[in-house]
């Protein structure tokens, strides 16, 4: 996991230790429980389409801000109350990638959603969650220029 930032790498390692799927699901849900939506200081409703994740039925939005030291901070909104997987992913990305430099984020491998959610992910969910990943990578890249 050489091109994966340390906190994210540690999270994936923890996840991989759960051979039982229900434990794995419970870990993901514990992240969803910790999800905190973007505050009004960062974004106000109605949120801009520019921040809306394409292909996401959970109504996910993403904001990326650059700190003074050049690291990034990620913010999310998930408008669909049933968007539990989107909330889990948002919380994981915030916990493990906020504080990283842009290049650490836009160089992430393409299969992270699969690594986190596994084979049980439906096609629709996969598209939405991958859309979240791709959006933080795109926005991180834009901030690196």
């Amino acid at each position, binding site marked *: 996991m050489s091109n994966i930032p340390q906190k994210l790498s540690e999270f994936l390692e923890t996840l991989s230790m759960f051979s039982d799927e*229900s434990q794995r*699901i*419970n870990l*993901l*849900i514990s992240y*969803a429980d910790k999800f905190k939506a973007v505050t009004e200081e960062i974004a106000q409703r109605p949120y801009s389409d520019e921040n809306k994740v394409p*292909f*996401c*039925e959970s109504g996910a939005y993403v904001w990326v801000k650059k700190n003074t030291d050049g690291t990034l901070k990620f913010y999310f909104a998930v408008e669909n*109350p*049933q*968007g*539990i*997987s989107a909330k*889990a992913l948002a919380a994981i990305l915030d916990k493990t990638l906020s504080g990283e430099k842009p290049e650490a984020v836009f160089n992430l491998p393409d299969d992270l959603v699969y690594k986190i*959610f596994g084979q*049980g*992910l*439906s*096609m*629709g*969910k*996969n*598209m*939405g969650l991958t859309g979240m990943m791709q959006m933080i990578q795109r926005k991180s890249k834009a901030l690196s220029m």
Partner: protein
Amino acid sequence: MKIEDRKYAHPEVLVSTDWAADHLKDEGIRIIESNEDQLLYSSGHIPGAVHVDWTKDLNDQVIRDYLNKDSFKKLMSRIGVSNTTTVIFYGDKNNWWACYAYWVFKLFGHVKAKVMDGGRLKWEIEKRELTRDVPTYPETKYKAKERDDKTIRAFRVDVLKHISAGKKLVDVRSPEEYSGERLHMPNYPNEGALRGGHIPGAKSIPWAKAINPDDGTFKTADELKQIYEKENNLNSKDNVIAYCRIGERSSHTWFVLKNLLGYDHVRNYDGSWTEWGNLVGVPIEK
């Protein structure tokens, strides 16, 4: 409007959220949640409800087919369902996956099956109790029947005969998939169909037209007749095959035609577009 006032052909296949809430602890009732999102059940479900996963529990894990008699027997035993248990399905996406599970249970002839109108969405809107406690029930000795693949399921050969006979088909995918503009539904990427379009003669009636989007409940029989019969010329005496991409959305339409409008001869072609759009030499319309 109450279920009994909606003039359905078989109103007994639906229960309201009120009814479900009043019967959670009844002997002989098993509430079953079936969702697209793999985290939803564990994040909170109706007290006492068990989980049936559409990929792992209902499908064979090697070949493209549903579980067999033995697997169904094991599933029913695991979730504590006997031959006399009434199963009540509910789930996300306007009961899309609940209807899919209902249809699979019907392949095995489980008689006592119903769907909770409005599904998970309505239960949540009404702020009813959800729990993370996973219930366990004593294993049962379920006597499973052989899967009946003829009465409510159609295969590609059946569809070819159906077309030749000029019988009716319903394409429940999005209009863009029907026209061939897309090879998959909006938000769902390509699943390998090499050709776009629809089966010749199929009417385009997207599955979600049968639902009130605000609370996920089914529309009344009059509203459904307007959609399926007045606008699309179907008739309850028709022999109809419904299809979509992999047979899940069309199981929802199958449920509507069979149970709410009382069509006696309606089948679900679960091979659907992922099969038809890849078959060599079959006719396609755009």
